[in-house]
C-alpha cells in the first residue's frame, strides 16, 4: 500500500499530511509548531511530525504538492506589478499576497495564467 506525503506551502496555512491506502495517518498545520497564525512558510515541522507518525522517511513512497508551483508563481507575480523585483519574494509571504488577493485563494488573473503556461 502506497504511503503518500502531501504538502501545502508558501501561500497561507502551510500544512502536511500522510495517507496510506486512503487512510489518514497524520495531518498537521505548521502554525501549531511555529506559533504564527496562518503560517505560510514551508512546513518543516509539520512534515517531520507526519513522517515520524508514518514510520520515518523510508516509509514514504511519494510526495505530493498542493498545486503546480510554476503556475502559482506566475499567478502571484502577475498579480503584483507594483512589486517590481520583489515579486518572487512576495510569493513566499502569506500576509502580503493574501491582502492583495482580498483573501481569495487565487488571484483574478488565474485563468489567463493557466492558458499562457500551457501553451
Amino acid at each position, binding site marked *: 500500500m502506497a504511503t503518500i506525503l502531501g504538502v501545502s506551502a508558501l501561500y497561507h496555512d502551510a500544512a502536511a499530511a500522510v495517507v496510506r491506502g486512503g487512510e489518514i495517518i497524520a495531518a498537521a498545520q505548521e502554525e*501549531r509548531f511555529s*506559533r504564527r*497564525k496562518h503560517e505560510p512558510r514551508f512546513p518543516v515541522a509539520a512534515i517531520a511530525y507526519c513522517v515520524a507518525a508514518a514510520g520515518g522517511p523510508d516509509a514514504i513512497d511519494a510526495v505530493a504538492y498542493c498545486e503546480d508551483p510554476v503556475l502559482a508563481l506566475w499567478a502571484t507575480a502577475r498579480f503584483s506589478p507594483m512589486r517590481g523585483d520583489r515579486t518572487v519574494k512576495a510569493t513566499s509571504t502569506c500576509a502580503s499576497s493574501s491582502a492583495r488577493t482580498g483573501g481569495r485563494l487565487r488571484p483574478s488573473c488565474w485563468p489567463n495564467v493557466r492558458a499562457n503556461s500551457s501553451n
Partner: protein
Amino acid sequence: MLAERSREFFELSGESPYMLLVADLREPVDWTGLRHGDGDMLKLLTQKRSLLPGITHVDYSARVQTVDFERNPSLHGLMSKFDEITGCPVLINTSFNVRGEPIVCTPADATRCFLNAGIELLSIGSQLAFKRQQSAELRAIVGSVEHEPD
C-alpha cells in the same frame, strides 16, 4: 455529546466523531421570546434558544461531536460522570487557544495559555493543575506571548 444519547438531543441519524456535522436540536426547544425582541435586535439575537443555550445557533442547530467509549474512553468517562451529576450529557468543546494564537501544540504552550488566559483548571493526560495553586516562579518560567488580533 455522549454518542449513545445524541438522538435524544439532536436530529442526527449517524455519528459525528470529528465535530464536522451540524444538526437541528430536538424538542424541547424553548421558543419563548422568538419574534419578541421589543424592537431590540440584540435581545432577539442573544435570547435563550434551548436547554443548551451555549451551543444553540440562531437557527436552532448546533455543531455536534459524538463522543464514544471506543474512540475516547477518558473523555467518555468524564462526560458520563458529568451526565450522572447534572443530567446533561453535553459539554462545550472550544479550541485551546486565545484570539490570534494557533491552537496549543505542546504542554509548554498549554501551560502558557492556561496561566495567561481566564482558565481555572488544566488537565494534561492524568495531570490536573489548578490556577490558584500555581506559583509566580512558574509564571516567570512559562512567560507570556503577545498575539496579533486576527
